């Protein structure tokens, strides 16, 4: 059954005529509800609730408290203001937190990069030396660094740009160690593609044994499969058995003597 909320009426006298079917959760909610409805919650409207709640337990016939309209209104307004304040405070707190975090990240990023001076030099050097290099766009960015002499083959002289050493005191050279790994990983990816497209899921492959034994299945006198024995089965067990047999023989010989 649907519990109807008692309607807040203007006239305090109609409180008696109120049907006390529903029960509101709290007084505050009632007050808010009254406020939202745009009706001044009369003290009389609040009253009968109290009366109802109490009335269920005790059958005392006390006179309700007299609350003026203004005080109740002021109270309600205060509540409302408090709620708004907390929300605003939370928002500002969050904002501040976010700001602090951002600053922290920017600082960390700055710390990670090389000092500004070196970066400047690198960018100016690469601008002047950029040749038209084929391949991915990524490679152009990566090719700002020099290649190690050991890694660079003779054939690469044509394409890779040699960057002059960038530091002031010329004591180090930037080296790209990922070169060979990149190549290997690309080759592996390519081989995986071929393997997948020819032998991967979705292809209709069968084992060689089954393929060669098809003819044996259709003969008038059916024969066994071509690779009938599985010699790779139980290798460990067979080895253990052989070892045990040898040791047993030796023991037998000893006891016989």
């Amino acid at each position, binding site marked *: 059954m649907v519990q109807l909320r008692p309607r807040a009426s203007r006239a305090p006298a109609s409180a008696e005529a109120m049907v006390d079917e529903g029960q509101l959760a709290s007084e505050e909610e009632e007050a808010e509800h009254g406020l939202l409805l745009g009706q001044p919650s009369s003290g009389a409207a609040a009253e009968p609730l109290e009366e109802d709640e109490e009335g269920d337990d005790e059958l005392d016939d006390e006179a309700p408290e007299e609350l003026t309209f203004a005080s109740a209104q002021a109270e309600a307004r205060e509540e409302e203001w408090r709620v708004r304040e907390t929300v605003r405070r939370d928002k500002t707190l969050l904002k501040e937190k976010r700001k602090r975090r951002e600053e922290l990240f920017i600082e960390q990023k700055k710390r990670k990069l090389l000092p500004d001076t070196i970066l400047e030099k690198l960018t100016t050097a690469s601008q002047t030396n950029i040749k038209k*290099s*084929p*391949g*991915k766009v990524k*490679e152009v960015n990566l090719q700002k660094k020099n290649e190690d002499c050991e890694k660079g*083959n003779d*054939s*690469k002289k*044509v*394409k890779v740009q040699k960057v002059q050493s960038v530091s002031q005191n010329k004591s180090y050279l930037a080296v790209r160690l990922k070169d060979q790994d990149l*190549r290997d990983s*690309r*080759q592996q990816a*390519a*081989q995986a*593609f071929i393997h997948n*497209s*020819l*032998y991967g899921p*979705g*292809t*209709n*492959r*069968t*084992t*060689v*044994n*089954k*393929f*060669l034994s*098809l003819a044996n*299945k*259709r003969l008038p006198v059916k024969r066994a499969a*071509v*690779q009938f024995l599985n010699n790779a089965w139980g290798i460990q067990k067979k080895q253990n058995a052989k070892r045990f047999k040898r040791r047993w023989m030796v023991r037998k010989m000893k006891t016989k003597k």
Partner: protein
Amino acid sequence: MGEFKVHRVRFFNYVPSGIRCVAYNNQSNRLAVSRTDGTVEIYNLSANYFQEKFFPGHESRATEALCWAEGQRLFSAGLNGEIMEYDLQALNIKYAMDAFGGPIWSMAASPSGSQLLVGCEDGSVKLFQITPDKIQFERNFDRQKSRILSLSWHPSGTHIAAGSIDYISVFDVKSGSAVHKMIVDRQYMGVSKRKCIVWGVAFLSDGTIISVDSAGKVQFWDSATGTLVKSHLIANADVQSIAVADQEDSFVVGTAEGTVFHFQLVPVTSNSSEKQWVRTKPFQHHTHDVRTVAHSPTALISGGTDTHLVFRPLMEKVQVKNYDAALRKITFPHRCLISCSKKRQLLLFQFAHHLELWRLGSTVATGKNGDTLPLSKNADHLLHLKTKGPENIICSCISPCGSWIAYSTVSRFFLYRLNYEHDNISLKRVSKMPAFLRSALQILFSEDSTKLFVASNQGALHIVQLSGGSFKHLHAFQPQSGTVEAMCLLAVSPDGNWLAASGTSAGVHVYNVKQQKLHCTVPAYNFPVTAMAIAPNTNNLVITHSDQQVFEYSIPDKQYTDWSRTVQKQGFHHLWLQRDTPISHISFHPKRPMHILLHDAYMFCIIDKSLPLPNDKTLLYNPFPPTNESDVVRRRTAHAFRISKIYKPLLFMDLLVERTLVAVERPLNDIIGQVPPPIKEKKFGT
């Protein structure tokens, strides 16, 4: 003849790698074959389909494309991103140039032969200019979305068709921009989740593009409008390769089920001028994927994962209908991969990346003709020697006494000393090999194991003296004049005086080892040498050629022997000349100077020079008749060539000691059992 005890050896686990690409050169009638382990072999089709040269493979090289360019230059490109050029004279790789596009999937030479096009993993198509000594990058075409898996030039050189995943693009060469992009259906009349990979494209001169893809379709497109003209569904699995004839009236496609289809341009009705493409012949010579096909003017060539190389001459194109029009299947190697130490009964097996040393078993039982004797001692796997580095082994040898093993890769030469104490074996490497010994084409030890003969790929022959645990370089014979025709073969006489070397177009050179100078040269013959050996005592050099001719040359007399002249005058039996496989090893009986032992992959023959030669009317294959036949009949039918076909397929056969032979067999099913899985075949009732 007497009876022999034969060691039948089947523990040589030889598995060749699958064929990945072939390229046919019309001018020289040669075929370049590239395998999955990076080996590139050159077959001379006019010399009875003999493998004359090869370039050893490399672990990181995964060749995906092979092509001939102008002037007999051979290029290959692979998944390591490099374009390599092969030097056919020096038998090494000239240079390897990185294309900077990631793994390279396809390569095509322009019809004029002066430009090279590569299709890369990142979707770019790069154009290279072929200069006299190198290739030079010219420019990039428009970059596409996915990897370019196949390329084809228009015969005029103005347009290019590039097949990728789910689409085909047509480029204009001058501008480098994509003119058309044709979307390929993922399935013939249907939808599919699996992407359609366009494995091959071919551009015809009338503007038709033929594409083969992984859905089993062969499609004809019009490049002017960019539309699909005709679609054929020919297989349930991928169609992986396509090759068009020069006259553009026929092409061949290979499928993953092992079937090769021949398409021909035939008139619609018998006297109309309108023609259409019709699928005419299916050939099922393979069991596994046919990854590559080629179309020569008279034959269809196919190769795939089951390691066979099949030549199918087309009957309508062959001029003379003789044995040349038969199917040729090359499965077994044309070189000897096994060496034998007779004194200690050891066999050295050469694999791509390791060597295995086995000792033969022994038996004490006796029996009569045809019995199988039980082994009292099993064959022993003594040594498993892995090579350092990613390169394949080119050649290897074990000395007759069994105490030295030598092998060579492209960059290094390895020499090991073996010590035997009781049943154990210990190995010690001889360090600090000189640089000129590396990349040897052939290695041979002298009979007394004191000298090592090395033929290096620069053409020089080196003699190295071995003593104790060290070696000393004695002499180097410089390369003689004449172009390099084939891989160098060596033969040394048992008394150690003479050394014969073949390989150049000038003929077989015979050197005097003691005096360290050239003794004589056997006159050149237009077919390459397949095997050579020098007989003991008489010092006759026996040479066999790829057209199955056998010559005997007397080294001390510097001329052909009388027997050889007789044979040449009469000619060989026609069945002898029609054998498919070349003779790969010759040996002699020490006590019987009139016998020569030869073998090829399917037969083993003892030539008895004292018996009469067969003419074309006699039966060539004449197994020993039963003893209850009269002697007269036996004498009448006996001829010089005693052939036995009991042991086949033979990889090696040699005479160990008196009355003992060793025969190394490799059954075909054992090879097929170890290749990658084939496509499932559905048969009713299974």
